[in-house]
């Protein structure tokens, strides 16, 4: 009985998307036709079919896979390295006003700094190598995670804490049964921001100082003027970003079933 009511809305959104598909297909077709007719410069706008075949070739010969792997091996450790301390300090600063007041000026001072500007400093401290790349990603990730977690804890309604206390919940129980679940939506929003910042910084660092990774490949493609490889790499980065966001949406939906709209945002 629930099946029809479940399929109807998704079918409706599916139908609602067809103008976007048509527009995209039309654009690609025009681009392809323009390229083949010699109206578009192959240097700026290589034909989509060429980009596609370059993409497939680059995966077949293992080049793209190796760069993708290198990027993921910086993205994931960097995310973990920044998000875990950000989460823990965010929980602490959200719960303890004194700690918040003490640490807030420092956080506010460093947060607006574009983190890539810290790269030379990090390289001086940790050398020109993998550690520095991961550390700079971690630093960038730390702040959105910290600030979102802190805000999440601070916006927990005191009413819920009062209810829990009234029913006899001790401090630790109030934390695990009220503060954590109540701030989880904001924490997951922070994690999504952090994951995207991590990708941004990984690619940036690879452009600046790396021989491997999708960012390095972007730069390499430019240096040898292989525009079709540049486009192919951008496609991979874009799909990677979509996959990361899709995965985090799924995670959000399963962890926060009581806020169904959160995952759609």
């Amino acid at each position, binding site marked *: 009985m629930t099946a029809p009511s479940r399929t109807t809305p998704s079918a409706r959104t599916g139908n609602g998307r067809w103008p976007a598909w048509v527009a995209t297909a039309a654009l690609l077709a025009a681009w392809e036709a323009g390229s083949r007719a010699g109206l578009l410069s192959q240097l700026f706008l290589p034909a989509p079919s060429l980009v596609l075949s370059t993409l497939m070739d680059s995966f077949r010969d293992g080049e793209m896979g190796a760069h993708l792997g290198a990027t993921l091996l910086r993205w994931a450790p960097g995310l973990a390295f920044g998000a875990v301390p950000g989460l823990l300090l965010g929980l602490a600063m959200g719960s303890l006003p004194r700690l918040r007041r003490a640490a807030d000026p420092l956080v506010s001072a460093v947060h607006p700094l574009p983190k890539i500007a810290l790269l030379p400093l990090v390289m001086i401290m940790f050398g020109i190598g993998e550690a520095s790349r991961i550390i700079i990603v971690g630093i960038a990730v730390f702040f959105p995670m910290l600030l979102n977690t802190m805000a999440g804890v601070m916006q927990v309604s005191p009413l*819920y804490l009062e209810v829990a206390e009234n029913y006899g919940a001790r401090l630790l129980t109030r934390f695990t049964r009220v503060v954590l679940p109540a701030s989880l939506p904001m924490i997951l929003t922070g994690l999504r921001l952090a994951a995207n910042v991590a990708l941004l910084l990984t690619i940036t660092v690879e452009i600046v100082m790396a021989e491997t990774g999708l960012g390095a490949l972007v730069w390499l493609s430019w240096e040898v003027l292989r525009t079709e490889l540049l486009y192919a790499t951008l496609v991979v980065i874009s799909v990677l970003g979509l996959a990361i966001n899709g995965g985090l949406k799924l995670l959000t939906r399963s962890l926060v079933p009581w806020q169904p709209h959160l995952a759609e945002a």
Partner: protein
Amino acid sequence: MITEAVGVACEEVGHVYDGTGGALAALDGVTFRARPAEFVCIVGPSGCGKSTLLRLIAGLLRPTAGSILFQGGTSGATPRNALVFQEHGVFPWMTVLDNVAFGLEMQGVSRTDRLERAHAFIERVGLATFEGRYPHELSVGMRQRVGIARAFVADVPILLMDEPFGSLDAQTKWVLQEELLRIWREDRKLVLFVTHDIEEAVRLGDRVLVMTGRPGSIREVLDIPFARPRDRDRDADASLAYTKRIWDLLEDEVRTGLLVTG
């Protein structure tokens, strides 16, 4: 399960909040007694400290003057009690079943036992088919049923209700008032029920405490002699007289309060 009957006696209770903007006297010289299993309603102008009074009795705040004594139960300590707020007090991240079982969980009741007792009560308030749902999937009235079920299931001798029906529409409110009275008849405990709604106070309470404006104290205590179970039609005319009388006591302060705060 039989709950130990507990009464409460407030003697010259006062409470002063130490805020950043200076001290604020919320209550001053509140004295009243409530018998075990009695239904006492508290009305008063906005900001008269009604909610503060409930939090003091709940043990969430300490009085800065006077004393609160409990008869029966464990002497000295605040006996177990349950606060019921507007429906916002229901945890959005827990299912209906887990919400209702929360009080028992905090008391250390085993999982099977508490889920069984919660389930039985959920059936009593007509929410059996919604047991696995989250509060956002329920109407406001249903959510408040969850809050009331959670408080009754916790099986405490004192129920402290802070404008529980304040955000309900008039019809839902009538239905929930009936339900609350029915459950209370079957499961008697001392209820202190704070409300803005004078008619509601007259309809539910054995007695109505009328409070003064801030700092709040007890202005008058009215006995509401209608037989139980209450009957809305039968009591209609007499209720009106009580409602009028309470309004006469409050009107001046409510009007002044509007001028000051509004």
